[in-house]
């Protein structure tokens, strides 16, 4: 029997291309202070365990775990770093509570992408050193190949992908934390500079700096801490093959499996009917389409048409990336998934301001670790009235 777990506090900075006046520690501190204030907690007294999400090469420091406890209030407490997607960190915090070990756990992820001057070269180090790295492929080239395969396999068009960019950047215009809001015409996306055909510059999320901290609590504690606990109803994560030559190109198997696990846990049989809106990875425009299909919102090959018909618009049947997604907020590296979670929580709490959707009860967030990984994680969240009955089913 699994304990129910809710998100009872959220803290986040704005997401912006540069943050020269603050260090990563100060970004983390800002988000942490806001999250603990939101949950009404003193971290040193009340939070029992801390999970952070980081990768050494991105931080420019080996064993980055060393540098996390002080600024998030985690001194002399259990702390662990998950080198994964933000939602992997959320899942870790969830399991620490669901196991009965702790009642209150904080999870943190951040991006100081502006400090990384040579990101494509660092990403190249993520490729198999024996078989793939000698190809000297730029990571965006791999995304371009995958997009090509995806368009070929599904019949989706570059125009439909460009429609994702137009939609998400337009949504971001209404989001006070987003940096890349824009009012674009389809032609402007299609005619932007080609980077790795068929990917053009506007198809690619630009990076942003920012930090996010969430506070999770067990049922019993969560209701006391928050008037609007947002329940974690389902979680799933999965890896496909890491090598370029053995993975499924075109299909996002990792997202299919992550979604299946999350839906099984949440008791969801028909995601399109039971989920009201989604914040899903759109690191590249085509990824939103590919992930929509993989997460079971439509059949393989249908997402392009969906998007063209406005199903995923703010006023559509399934609004997707109402916050602006990564294309509109800026890509926060491994913090992107937690940014999506924050935007789902804001909607479910009814605190999304100009972005607020009417009558939303259940939302989905999905994060992907980016090229060249095949690693993704999904979480299904519901508002105060909708916890799982009798614990989640396996």
């Amino acid at each position, binding site marked *: 029997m699994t304990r129910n777990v809710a998100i009872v506090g959220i803290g986040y900075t704005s997401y912006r291309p540069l943050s020269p006046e603050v260090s990563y520690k100060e970004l983390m501190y800002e988000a942490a202070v806001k999250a603990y204030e939101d949950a009404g907690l003193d971290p040193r007294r009340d939070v029992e365990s801390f999970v952070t999400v980081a990768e050494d090469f991105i931080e420019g420091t080996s064993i980055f775990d060393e540098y996390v406890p*002080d600024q998030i209030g985690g001194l002399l407490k259990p702390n662990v770093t998950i080198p994964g997607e933000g939602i992997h960190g959320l899942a870790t915090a969830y399991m620490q509570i669901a196991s009965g070990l702790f009642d209150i756990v904080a999870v943190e992820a951040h991006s100081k992408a502006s400090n990384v001057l040579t990101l494509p070269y660092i990403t190249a180090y993520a490729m198999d050193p024996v078989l793939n790295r000698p190809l000297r492929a730029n990571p965006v080239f791999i995304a371009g190949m995958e997009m090509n395969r995806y368009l070929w396999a599904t019949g989706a068009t570059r125009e439909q992908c460009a429609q994702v960019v137009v939609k998400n950047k337009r949504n971001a215009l209404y989001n006070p934390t987003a940096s890349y809001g824009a009012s674009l015409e389809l032609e402007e996306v299609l005619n932007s500079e080609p980077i790795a055909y068929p990917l053009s510059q506007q198809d690619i999320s630009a990076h942003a700096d920012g930090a996010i901290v969430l506070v999770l609590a067990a049922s019993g504690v969560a209701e006391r801490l928050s008037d609007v606990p947002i329940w974690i109803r389902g979680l799933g994560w999965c890896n496909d*093959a890491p090598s370029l030559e053995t993975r499924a190109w075109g299909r996002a198997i990792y997202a299919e499996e*992550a979604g299946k696990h999350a839906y099984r846990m949440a008791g969801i049989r028909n995601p399109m009917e039971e989920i009201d809106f989604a914040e899903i990875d759109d690191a590249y425009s085509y990824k939103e389409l590919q992930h929509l299909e993989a997460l079971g919102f439509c059949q393989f090959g249908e997402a392009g048409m969906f998007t063209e018909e406005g199903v995923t618009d703010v006023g559509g049947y399934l609004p997707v990336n109402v916050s602006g997604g990564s294309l509109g907020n800026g890509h926060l590296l491994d913090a992107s998934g937690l940014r999506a979670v924050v935007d789902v929580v804001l909607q479910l709490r009814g605190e999304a301001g100009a972005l607020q959707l009417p009558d939303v009860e259940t939302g989905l967030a999905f994060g992907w670790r980016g090229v060249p990984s095949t690693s993704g994680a999904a979480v299904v969240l519901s508002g105060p009235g909708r916890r799982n009955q009798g614990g989640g089913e396996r």
Partner: protein
Amino acid sequence: MSMRKVAVVGAGMTKFVRRAQETGKELSFEATKMALETCDLTLDQVDCVVHGTAPDSFDGVHMKGEYLADGSGAWRKPYTRCYVGGGTGVFTPIHGWYHVASGLFDICLVVCEEKMSSCQPHPQGAFLTIFDHTTERPLEPNLLWIFAMEMNRYMHTYGLKKEDIALVSVKNKRNAADHPCSLLGDPDITVEDVLNSPVLAWPVQRLDVSPVTDGAVALVLAAEHVARRISDKPVWIEGVGWNLDTTYWTNRDLCYPRYVEKAARMAYDMAGITEPRKQIHIAEPYDPFDYKELHHLEGLMLFDRGKAPEATALGITQRDGDLPVCPSGGLLGVGNPIAAAGLMKVAELFWQLRGEAGGRQVPGQPKRGVAQAWGDLMQVGTVIVMGA
């Protein structure tokens, strides 16, 4: 609330060697395959995989967890990597424990791999990048240098001599002579050998330190209802604990690892241990340096502060003593492929508590053991208590 019980039901490990011909993926595969075979499971019965491996800078592979996924059996499975520096090897089974204890999964594969030899000319070069980029890196410190400071502080505080500490190295390297996977087992080593070895950073000498090593270890964890079905001798995870002290290591007294004590208290509380000295029969504290075994025995509250050297001199920590410590041979003897070395300690408890440790078997049918690892900037303690 009552927690779901979780057992270790299988274990596997590669030889620990100075320079493996295999890639990290292959090392992971070898240990994983062996672990599954020891409990008659196949990969399709595994629900999820967790991985532990220390700095990416050893291999020069970014997102090293992703790279090692398929070698560790994680193809199309839920998979995460956890990371607490040198403490990772004992933390990874804790990470696996809550995967199962949470009720999300029934069978979890725990894999730790380290390939240090790819870092040329020496992995100490990679360790230059663990320090604060502004306040410490300009001093070009390395690990031997800061641990020499800690060793000095420990010796100074309790008036210890090098001879008192060298006994640990001798004990562990002799114990390792009985370990089929060991790199530096030596049945004939003496205190004089340690004291006459080259000085690296006073008071640390070459034989005070564990070697650069490649290797991998894997465990299989199972929920109670599965464990009882598939295993005659499940070994239960009774307590878990971990704790991280401040980044600013220069501000704390290095003579005592308070973070290890806090991690131990957490694990003992969970295991219902009130008198660790009576209730724990076997200990595998982290021993990358010989003084660290003593330091950690005190942090684990198995001996009074400053008294672990005396207990060592009296033979209490020998394999046939009252509290066998590092009967495996530890990092000093078996080798120190960082994350894999920590998990090797947990595997050793598994074998010892099942009575399957062969020439290393501790007499008297031990019922409960503790394993511990340590890492970051002399900063993190990870503790697991296991019972037969």
